[in-house]
C-alpha cells in the first residue's frame, strides 16, 4: 500500500510541476510586453525610463527558465506575485474570494446531488415509464443550457418579472440562491443522465437478481448494493464537475456579482491583470487535480478490486 501511495504522490508532484510550467508559459507567451501591461493596468504613462526600471524590477530580462524557477519557487511558498492593478498580493486576493466560491460550489453541488440522485434512482427503477420520459427530457434540456443563459433567464424571470429576488445578490444565503441555481441546473441535468445510466447498468447485474431471489427487500438492494457499487461512477462524475464549476463560476459570479474567484478572474481579464489570472488558473488546476486524486483514492475504498496505474 505504501508503494502505491508513494507512486501516486510522485505522479501528483509531476502533474503539479507540469501545471505550473504550463501556466507560467501561458503568461509568458501572452502578446505584448509584461512591463507595458503592468504600467497600463496601473494607468501610469509609459516612458522609456519607467519602462526600463519596471522591466528590471520585474526581472524580465532573465532567461525564461530562471523566471519560471523563481516564480514557481515563490508560488510553492504561497507567494503568487502581486496584482498589476493595485500591487496587492495575488494570493491574498485569491484567499478572500476563495470562501465565497467554495460556498457557491458546495451549495450548487449539494443541490444538484440532492435532486439528481433520488430522481436517477426513480427513473432507473421505473424505466420507460411516463415520469422517466419527462425527466429525461428535462435533463436533456437542462444539460443543453449554457450557464450564462440560465443565469440571465433566471434573472429575467425571477428578478425582473416576478420580483421575487433582488437583482444584485446579497452576500448571504438569500443571495446565494440564484447563482447556485444557475450553476446547479445544467449540472443536475448532466448528473441525472449519467447516474441513471450507471444505476441501470448495476440493476442488470447478477447480484441484483440473486438478492431478489433471496428475498432481500428492494430498498436494501437499491440503496445498500446498487448505490454502493454505482458510487465509483458517481464520484467520478462529481470530481469532474469541480472543473466545470470553476469554469461556470466565472460566468455566474460575474452576472450575479458574487465576490468569488470567478468574478475575480473576470475582472482581472478585463483589467489585463495577468498575475491574478495566472493565480486563478493555477489555483483551479491544483484544486481540480487534488479533487480527482481524492476520488481516485476513494475508488479503492469502495471497490477494493480497483488498482491504479
Amino acid at each position, binding site marked *: 500500500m505504501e508503494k502505491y501511495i508513494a507512486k501516486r504522490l510522485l505522479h501528483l508532484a509531476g502533474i503539479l510541476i507540469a501545471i505550473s510550467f504550463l501556466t507560467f508559459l501561458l503568461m509568458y507567451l501572452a502578446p505584448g510586453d509584461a512591463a507595458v501591461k503592468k504600467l497600463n493596468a496601473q494607468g501610469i504613462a509609459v516612458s522609456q525610463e519607467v519602462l526600463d526600471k519596471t522591466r528590471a524590477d520585474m526581472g524580465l530580462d532573465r532567461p525564461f527558465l530562471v523566471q519560471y524557477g523563481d516564480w514557481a519557487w515563490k508560488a510553492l511558498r504561497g507567494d503568487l506575485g502581486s496584482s498589476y492593478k493595485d500591487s496587492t498580493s495575488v494570493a491574498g486576493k485569491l484567499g478572500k474570494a476563495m470562501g465565497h466560491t467554495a460556498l457557491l460550489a458546495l451549495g450548487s453541488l449539494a443541490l444538484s446531488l440532492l435532486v439528481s440522485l433520488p430522481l436517477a434512482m426513480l427513473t432507473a427503477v421505473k424505466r420507460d415509464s411516463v415520469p422517466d420520459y419527462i425527466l429525461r427530457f428535462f435533463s436533456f434540456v437542462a444539460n443543453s443550457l449554457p450557464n450564462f443563459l440560465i443565469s440571465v433567464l433566471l434573472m429575467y424571470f425571477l428578478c425582473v418579472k416576478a420580483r421575487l429576488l433582488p437583482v444584485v445578490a446579497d452576500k448571504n444565503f438569500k443571495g446565494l440562491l440564484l447563482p447556485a441555481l444557475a450553476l446547479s441546473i445544467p449540472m443536475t441535468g448532466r448528473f441525472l443522465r449519467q447516474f441513471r445510466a450507471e444505476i441501470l447498468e448495476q440493476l442488470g447485474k447478477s447480484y441484483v437478481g440473486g438478492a431478489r431471489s*433471496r*428475498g432481500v427487500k428492494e430498498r436494501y438492494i437499491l440503496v445498500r448494493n446498487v448505490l454502493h457499487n454505482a458510487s465509483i461512477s458517481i464520484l467520478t462524475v462529481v470530481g469532474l464537475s469541480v472543473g466545470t464549476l470553476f469554469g461556470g463560476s466565472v460566468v455566474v459570479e460575474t452576472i450575479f456579482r458574487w465576490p468569488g474567484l470567478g468574478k475575480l478572474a473576470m475582472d482581472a481579464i478585463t483589467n489585463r491583470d495577468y498575475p491574478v489570472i495566472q493565480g486563478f488558473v493555477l489555483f483551479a488546476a491544483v484544486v481540480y487535480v487534488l479533487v480527482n486524486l481524492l476520488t481516485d483514492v476513494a475508488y479503492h475504498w469502495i471497490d477494493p478490486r480497483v488498482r491504479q496505474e
Partner: protein
Amino acid sequence: MKEAILEISGLSAGYGGAPSVADVSFTLARGEILCVVGESGCGKSTLLKAVLGMEPGLRILAGTVTLDGTELTSLPEKERRKACAARIGMVFQDPGGAFNPIRSYRKQFIETLRSRGLYDPAAFEDRTAEALGKLGLTEPRRVLASCPYEMSGGMKARVALALTLLLGQELLLADEPTSALDATVQLQVAKELRRLREAEGLSQIIVTHNLALAEFLGDRIAVLYGGRLVELGPARALAAAPAHPYTRSLMAAIPSLDGRMPAPLPGQPPLGGPAAAGCGFADRCPLAGDGCQEAPYALREVSQGHFSACCAEGGAV
C-alpha cells in the same frame, strides 16, 4: 410414499408466448434429490426459473406448481415471491454471482436475514458459524469479513449453501452449481450437497449437463429433451439401463477409459422448444417408427418408478 414437497403438473412455460418447456410433471419428495439432465438449450434452466417464478419475461402458459400444499401458480406475484423466498433457495452456475462482489458476506447475510425477519443480533454469530461449519468452512469470522471477489469458486458455492441453511429453506434449486468449478472441487461440492440432504433433509433439484454428477448425487434423474421430460427414474437404474433412446444416446456419447468411442447422434436438438405434436426426438431417433411423428406426448411407466416418453416398438426395455 414419502411426503411431497414439490408437485409439478403439466407445466408449460416460455418467454413471449411460445413454450420453452411443455407438459412437465413430476413430484419431488421431501429430502429427495432430483437431478435434471439434458443438453444446452433443452429448457432445464427455464424449468427451474418457472418454478421460482421470478424471471422477468417468463410466463407460465399451462399447468401448476405446488409447493408443500400451496399452489404457487395461482398466487399473485408478491405472495408468490414471499412463499418462494421463504422455502426455496436458488444457487446459480456462478455461485458468487448472486452476491454483490464488493461487499462483505457479513453485510449481505445480515441484510438478507433482516429482510426476512430472521435477524437476531445475539444469535447471528453462532448460527452463522454453525451453518458455515456444516459446509466445511471452519473460519466463520474470516469468511464473513471477506467479499465474494476474494473467494474461490468452491468457497463461494459453500457460502451460498450456508445461507440457504441459515434461511431455513427446505428446497434447493441449483442450476449447474458445479459447472464453473474445478473437477476436484466439483466432487467436494457434490458431497456437501449430499451431506446436506442426510443431515438437514434438504430437498434438491439439481440441473446439470454432467451425467456422472447426476448419477452420483441424485436419487432420481429426469432427462429433458426439446423442452419435454423424456425419461424419469431412479438414478442408478436409469444410468445402468436407460429406457428412452435419447438417454441411451446420451450415455453412449460419454467416452470411457476402456476405449469405447462416443457414438454421436445425427442432427441437432430442436431449437424452437417443444414440438406441438408428436415426439420431438423422432427425426433423430434410431427407433423411430410410423406412429412417432403424431403420437401425443405421454410418460409411460417402464418399471417401478421408471418412466419413459418413448412410444416406439422396442423403446421400453
